[in-house]
């Protein structure tokens, strides 16, 4: 070749920049699996497609798909959903994908690849990403019909087809993939067995105790596990197709056998063309993924680095990045091995393994926590000096994985006793702050993003988790590291002098809690007064609604009285929820979800009269969409006359108190959950708070009202009410904590009074109770002291304040429709009574909805 191609002289990497070929070279990628696709993406990201024409030879009939998520195929049966190739990706100039194209031979001398169809393709650079093949143990009869492996979508299709005629399925191999396969067979409705030669399941990742617990858990799910069992032969069965002979008169009859006993590198092409291989297979690569032929790379499970095969996708991705970087003459990153720690959910059981899980390091000592009743096993392995974490095994509860992994990977001095890392309950485990992590710390293992890379992105201007995700891919795959990414962001922004404060906005140098106290102590009654005394500027769309909420929490004036009207977000101003076309939705209060037929008919009649789109909400009420601003008062007039009140669906306030039917009808009901829900909803309706509040009351411990996912959850027992607090559903689910048990009706109300008012006093803007509790110093114990033991001596005050809010309640819609001046504001035009002339609807499923942009164009053309 006519130009110096010094790419592979690893001795002086920085000099190679600029040695990218000037004319386009040909790259052949053999294999289009997860790692192959990542290689293409990395090459494209680095601008490599300007310099290389890449032809991809894929033996399978489908382009790259998510092999890690293969089991999903059994439930979803949607191959496209597993695809890893973004729409339009292969249309980029420089990429040619050949499906169902298997390579027969590599001629390194001629730099030509010959396919099984006889096609000859020449190359300048060759990338082997052929992956691995499932190891099938050399057992007599392993080639009988209905014996499968578990690797490709085609394998799965065959298993699914065979399962139709089968009753029993058996997996040979109790490792990670074997258990995945077992789940698949189980989901297909087969009586499922797992046969494992080793004394325990997941022998590589977990130890005997952990493996034993895992076995118990998996057996409890209906899968029979045979450990210490080797198969000698497979012969015809009597009841079923096969009989697996285990020796000593032990045997198992089964219809289907799936071999999942490990993987072997798919290195036959490399072997045939004389590339250097390891003793037990695998194509030998250096730190730059280059094989013994400088023009051939190997990446993924086919590659052998320092005598090791990496059978996980994350190291494969790192190799793909490395090879792409080398082709683009970038010296970084090189491949430096990979951590094989794993965390996964197997048949609903959390299992994780970190570092030296078996304590093989000389002098290693371990601490173990084992609770058979809850099914939790945790082990940490520490160094001889007791200061460093070497490894860990977690079964049944893997919440500590992230923390332990960082401690282990970064060799950080342990924050306390090793046992405290896994000890349950007695206070929170010592957590690792983001500051303690070195720059090399890997924060996102899916996409191999280090803390240093996050810091660099922050230096380049990233200021939100969203920014970081977009430019580094951190937390873009499994999302497990999102909390850690946020911690790094906050601490790094603070270091850079970007003030991370809890000031509500530029107009008030105070937190919401501080503003609350300023308002209360200073008896401030209006926003203007607050701004004059404690703020600057004109205010904004952050501080105005906040001030309105605080003023309402403290003094509970009519929210649309003149001094407050200009503070309200449009939802509060027009007492409805603005939808995407600028119209509003209407949600009348239906306390406890109990409604008479007459009232239900009124809702139906109103919806019909105004052609409102009607939907039942998750909070047991009815949402009517599509009311124009000038229609709101007349609609609400009808509703108020029929006895409805506003549901405050627009406000940061109590939404609903969901209930099950309880002892009113239910044969299991212990108490009157509906009656209590109505009482509670009527008590706290209209209460303005830092964020919306949801509650529920269940009539027995079957918990049909899902009270434990609410800010306040009440569950009846035969001894009284159990009160749960600070739960959440939605985007960030949190199971509620039990605050107190066995309350009488009266105690229940008093406790909720105190709890809610304490939250309103101390929470930040838009902070739900769940996040508030997590940030409350002292946590649940402190909350119990304040609420139950009255440790701050404010119990009476909290109750009195709540009583004042309750005494001054008014239905904002009733007040509004009775006030002609207030009704006047509900107009679209100040100078005309007509409606907005730019609303367009289409009918769908018998109701109307706002037209989408493309439909609007069509509609306007038709109307025009």
């Amino acid at each position, binding site marked *: 070749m006519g130009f110096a191609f010094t790419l592979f002289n690893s001795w002086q990497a920085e000099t190679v920049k600029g040695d990218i070929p000037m004319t386009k070279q040909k790259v052949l990628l053999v294999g289009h699996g997860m790692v192959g696709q990542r290689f293409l993406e990395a090459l494209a990201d680095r601008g490599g497609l300007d310099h290389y024409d890449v032809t991809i030879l894929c033996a399978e009939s489908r382009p790259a798909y998510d092999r890690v998520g293969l089991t999903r195929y059994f439930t979803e049966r949607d191959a496209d959903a597993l695809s890893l190739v973004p729409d339009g990706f292969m249309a980029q100039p420089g990429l040619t994908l050949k499906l169902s194209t298997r390579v027969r031979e590599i001629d390194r001398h001629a730099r030509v690849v010959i396919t099984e169809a006889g096609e000859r393709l020449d190359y300048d650079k060759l990338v082997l990403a052929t992956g691995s093949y499932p190891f099938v143990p050399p057992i007599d009869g392993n080639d009988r019909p209905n014996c499968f492996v578990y690797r490709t979508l085609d394998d799965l299709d065959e298993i699914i087809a065979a399962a139709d005629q089968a009753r029993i399925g058996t997996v040979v191999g109790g490792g990670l993939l074997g258990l995945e396969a077992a789940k698949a067979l189980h989901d297909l409705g087969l009586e499922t067995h797992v046969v494992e030669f080793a004394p325990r399941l997941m022998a590589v990742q977990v130890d005997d105790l952990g493996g034993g617990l895992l076995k118990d858990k998996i057996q409890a799910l209906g899968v029979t596990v045979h450990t210490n069992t080797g198969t000698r032969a497979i012969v015809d069965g009597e009841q079923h197709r096969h009989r697996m002979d285990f020796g000593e008169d032990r045997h198992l009859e089964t219809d289907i056998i799936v071999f999942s006993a490990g993987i072997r590198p798919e290195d036959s092409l490399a072997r045939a063309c004389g590339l250097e291989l390891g003793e037990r297979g695998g194509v030998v690569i250096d730190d730059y993924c280059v094989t013994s032929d400088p023009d051939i790379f190997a990446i993924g499970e086919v590659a052998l680095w320092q005598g090791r095969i990496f059978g996980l996708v994350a190291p494969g991705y790192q190799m793909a990045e490395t090879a792409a970087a080398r082709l683009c003459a970038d010296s970084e990153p090189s491949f430096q091995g990979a951590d094989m720690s794993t965390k996964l959910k197997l048949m609903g059981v959390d299992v994780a393994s970190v570092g030296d899980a078996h304590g093989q390091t000389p002098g290693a000592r371990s601490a173990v926590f084992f609770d058979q009743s809850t099914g939790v096993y945790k082990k940490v392995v520490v160094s001889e000096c007791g200061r460093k974490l070497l490894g860990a095994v977690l079964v049944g509860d893997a919440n500590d994985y992230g923390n332990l992994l960082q401690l282990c990977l970064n060799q950080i001095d342990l924050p306390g006793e090793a046992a405290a890392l896994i000890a349950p309950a007695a206070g929170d485990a010592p957590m690792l702050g983001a500051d303690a992590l070195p720059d090399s710390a890997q924060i996102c293992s899916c996409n191999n993003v280090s803390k240093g890379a996050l810091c660099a992105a922050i230096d380049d201007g990233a200021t939100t988790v969203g920014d970081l995700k977009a430019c580094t891919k951190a937390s873009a795959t499994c999302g497990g590291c999102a909390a850690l990414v946020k911690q790094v962001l906050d601490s790094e922004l603070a270091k850079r002098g970007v003030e991370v404060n809890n000031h509500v906005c*530029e*107009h008030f140098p105070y937190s919401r809690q501080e503003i609350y106290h300023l308002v209360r102590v200073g008896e401030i009654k209006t926003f*203007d007064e607050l701004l004059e005394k404690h703020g600057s*500027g*004109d*205010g*904004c*769309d952050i*501080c*105005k*609604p906040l001030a309105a909420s605080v003023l309402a929490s403290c003094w509970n004036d009519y929210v649309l009285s*003149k001094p407050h*009207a*200009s*503070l*309200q*977000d*449009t*939802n509060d*101003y*027009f007492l409805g929820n*603005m939808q*995407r*076309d*600028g119209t509003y939705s209407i949600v009348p209060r239906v306390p406890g979800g109990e409604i008479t037929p007459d009232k239900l008919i009124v809702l139906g009649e109103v919806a019909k009269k105004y052609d409102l789109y009607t939907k039942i909400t998750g909070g047991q009420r009815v949402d009517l969409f599509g009311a124009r*601003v000038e229609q709101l008062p007349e609609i609400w007039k009808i509703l108020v006359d029929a006895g409805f009140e506003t549901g405050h669906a627009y406000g940061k306030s109590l939404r609903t108190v969901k209930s099950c039917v309880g002892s009113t009808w239910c044969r299991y009901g212990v108490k009157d959950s509906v009656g209590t829900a109505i009482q509670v909803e009527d008590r706290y309706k209209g209460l303005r708070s830092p964020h919306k509040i949801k509650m529920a009351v269940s009539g027995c411990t079957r918990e049909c009202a899902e009270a434990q996912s609410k800010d306040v959850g009440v569950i009846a027992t035969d001894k009284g009410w159990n009160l749960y607090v600070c739960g959440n559903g939605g985007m960030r689910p949190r199971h509620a904590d039990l605050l107190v048990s066995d309350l009488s009706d009266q105690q229940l109300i008093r406790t909720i009074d105190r709890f809610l008012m304490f939250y309103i006093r101390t929470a930040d803007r838009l902070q739900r109770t769940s996040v508030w509790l997590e940030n409350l110093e002292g946590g649940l114990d402190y909350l119990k002291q304040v609420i139950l033991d009255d440790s701050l001596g404010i119990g009476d005050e909290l109750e009195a304040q709540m009583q004042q809010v309750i005494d001054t309640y008014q239905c904002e819609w009733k007040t509004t429709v009775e006030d002609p001046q207030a009704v006047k*504001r509900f*107009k*679209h*035009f*100040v*100078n*005309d009574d*007509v409606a*907005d002339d*730019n609303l367009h609807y289409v009918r769908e499923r018998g109701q109307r909805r706002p037209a989408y*942009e493309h439909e*609007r164009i069509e509609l306007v053309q038709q109307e025009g």
Partner: protein
Amino acid sequence: MNSSVTLEWKAVCKVDEILPGTGVGVRLPEGQAALFRTRDGQLHALDNMDPFSRANVISRGLLGSLGGTRVVASPLYKQHFCLETGKCLEDETVSLTVYPVRQRGELVEVAVG
């Protein structure tokens, strides 16, 4: 046609029909405007159509200031538009038309055409 730009002033409402610190929608011969009265009594008029949602809702946005720029926040997706220039603070490529506005006696007039 006279090509010189002549402003035609159109009276739209009385000034006390707009609560200080809020806005109202105004019907113009062609289209809609959002008319605002700030806390200190200044008047501003912008397009009523929110370019991000294509809904006529700008008049229902909250007024405020950001770094000294007086703005209105779209009630749907919360972008801020400068009351003086109509420019969107979050996206330079987007701006709202600004209509000249004046007060004559009790009446507020918006210039059209």
